[in-house]
């Protein structure tokens, strides 16, 4: 199975590549628009700051190809910053426009819990993910059990309208959007490629979509 990973010069691509190789994929890195448009399954990875990530994508003229790919109906998975960039905008270090493939903004994780206590951010570590508004059927989570622990590391979180929320996790009473879906477009705030066998299983399920 062939999978294409967007290479826009930022972040640790190797983990994502190794994850898909482990489940038997032929992984191609795409740094040019035509490679993105012609992909059959596309991964948008990313770590780091939102503004930097979008700037790198634009500087390489990859924004339009990613949008064109998304409109084709073929499956797209954004991971961590890659998921956040699917949304319309982020307020990390100023205000930055995203790809707008999923409505809503990316906001800072509240530094206070609903109970009024301060808690630690970034949110780093393993949290269980649970079902949200969108059904897990026919998604990469179709074989995942609720409350499965996966690895998160982030200071900002996506805040899409509820009808795009595929999974959430609880962080000291703060509900964090853990996965999104808009038709063929998926995103995970957590790192499936760093979440052990449970995460690799999600990558395998993505190949069936």
């Amino acid at each position, binding site marked *: 199975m062939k999978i294409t990973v967007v290479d826009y010069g930022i972040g*640790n691509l190797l983990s994502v590549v190794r994850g898909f190789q482990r489940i038997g994929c032929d992984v191609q890195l795409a740094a040019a628009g035509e490679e993105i448009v012609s992909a059959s399954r596309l991964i948008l990875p990313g770590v780091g700051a939102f503004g930097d990530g979008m700037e790198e994508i634009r500087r390489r003229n990859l924004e339009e190809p990613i949008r064109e790919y998304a409109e084709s109906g073929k499956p797209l998975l954004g991971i961590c910053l890659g998921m956040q960039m699917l949304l319309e905008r982020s307020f990390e270090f100023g205000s930055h426009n995203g790809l707008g493939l999923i409505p809503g903004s990316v906001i800072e994780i509240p530094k206070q819990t609903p109970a009024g206590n301060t808690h*630690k951010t*970034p949110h780093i570590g393993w949290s269980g993910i649970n079902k949200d508004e969108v059904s897990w059927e026919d998604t990469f989570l179709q074989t995942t059990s609720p409350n499965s622990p996966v690895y998160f590391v982030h200071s900002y979180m996506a805040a899409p309208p509820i009808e795009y929320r595929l999974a959430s996790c609880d962080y000291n009473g703060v509900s964090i959007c853990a996965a999104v879906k808009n038709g063929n477009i998926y995103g995970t705030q957590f790192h499936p490629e760093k979440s*052990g*066998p449970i995460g690799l299983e999600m990558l395998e399920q993505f190949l069936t979509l």
Partner: protein
Amino acid sequence: MANIRLIPRLDIKGPNLIKGIHLEGLRVVGDPQVYAVNYYESGADELLYMDIVASLYGRNNLSDIVKSAAENVFIPITVGGGIRSVADADQLLRSGADKVAINTAAINDPELISKLSQRFGSQCVVVSIEAKKQSGGKWECYVDNGRERTGIDVVNWVREAITLGAGELLITSVDKEGTRKGFDLELYKAVKDVATIPLIACGGMGCLEDFDNVVKDGGVDAVSMADVLHYNRLTLPQIRSAALDSNINVRQP
């Protein structure tokens, strides 16, 4: 509360996994790859690699070790030892590391913390502190594996590192490291009130009770352990199941 993380620590010298006492008196344990895969398969939450002689020689040899680990290990990997610049960190991240840990270079040039966190995000930057107890309830930061004093107070340095953009703290007690006599609880108690970012305890784990104490009294978010795992005194499943029995949240893989 996120789950308390169990983080095997692999100290590396050349091609070997090694272990010392008080960060000195090093002995070869074995092939780091064998241990890394074993820890991944037995449910480690992350791995921590430290090139423990790198800062002495001004080099970093971990990229190859990390590259091969990333082929078989699908949990987060933190790498430290000898990172002096954004370029050094970039090379390790490109080799499969998820986070970098910096100690000596951060003490020499605190702005490096800001540079790394602006470039890669604060979640990528672990500030590693080697703490040695002084009189009067204070701890001093050491560098070069507990060899060199800096005159810097640990609690003050924690505050500064957080302001500069650190995403996590790894605090190793030089006094307890490798002794199996338990963690320096007073150290973590002193730090926890100022630590608004996750805190990883390291140094001294000898038994299950030590884990319990450092989580419950020390208030840490993660526990790094070496000796106790390398010599098979305890296994990760044993530690995990004891933690659950003691009402400490840990991941159940």
